């Protein structure tokens, strides 16, 4: 597994209002199931240091793990020597929710922008047919079909694209403000 860039952010205690966004982590790894544990460890640490809640750290880690599992199982049919690329960027959500701005300074001035992680996972397997991406109904008690649920439930944006003989899954998770109790 090759790690080409990693930026830690103040141990998750305080986020620097002047810190730059952009690339946080880039991994190139073969499609070995034995590496999933190492990737989960990296994602856990990264999401913790980024300031996500423990629940959201687990959600992002689970989504990435399930996405990689799907690639190994379905795109590469269990082959352990195929390439997977994982890129994690810090991003901002503009007040206009359709406009996502990467690589901008963090705004902590009370504006409505939200900080988050953009995770791009690319493989060189065959194109995924829409019918292959179906989720089973949760009411059914049966084995299988849960991975996509975990990805959808855990992330704010899930997008799949096919380009240049690669599959690209884009996952985005924003840091959500803690829910406030309404006591009055």
């Amino acid at each position, binding site marked *: 597994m090759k790690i080409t860039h990693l930026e830690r952010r103040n141990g998750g205690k305080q986020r620097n209002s002047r810190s730059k966004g952009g690339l946080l982590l880039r991994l190139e790894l073969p499609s070995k199931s034995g590496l999933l544990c190492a990737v989960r460890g990296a994602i856990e640490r990264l999401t913790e240091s980024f300031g996500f809640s423990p629940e959201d750290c687990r959600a992002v880690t689970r989504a990435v793990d399930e996405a990689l599992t799907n690639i190994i199982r379905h795109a590469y049919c269990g082959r352990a020597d195929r390439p997977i690329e994982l890129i994690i960027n810090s991003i901002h959500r503009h007040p206009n929710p359709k406009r996502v701005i990467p690589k901008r300074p963090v705004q902590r001035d009370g504006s409505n922008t939200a900080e988050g992680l953009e995770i791009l996972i690319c493989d060189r397997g065959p194109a995924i047919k829409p019918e292959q991406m179906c989720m089973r109904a*949760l009411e059914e*008690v049966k084995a299988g079909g*849960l*991975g996509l649920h975990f990805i959808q439930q855990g992330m704010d944006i899930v997008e799949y694209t096919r380009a240049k003989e690669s599959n690209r899954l884009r996952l985005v998770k924003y840091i959500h403000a803690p829910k406030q109790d309404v006591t009055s």
Partner: protein
Amino acid sequence: MEISTRKIDKTVIVDLSGDIDLGNTPAARKAFLREVKENRVPRVVINLSKVRYIDSSGVASLVEALKASRDVGSRLILIGLSTSVREVLQLSRLLKIFEIYDKEEEALAV
């Protein structure tokens, strides 16, 4: 991941340790089904207290073992769910499907 089994009277306890993911789910599934289908143990307790992470394939293996236990008329019990494992079963809407206890003594007492 490590898997071991203990027998107490008519109960077999399957102790799991580590993460249950794509790489080791087949071993876990094999252990569950061996006790339920092959050995026809009347009560199988799966101890997840040392399992930090379980993925969808691990959940699928638990569901398969539960179905097999229903087919043969035995009981399958989960104990020691961590926050992470409980969360995954909750997301899968499977928490109420399984018989779950916090501690081994509780599972053996019922």
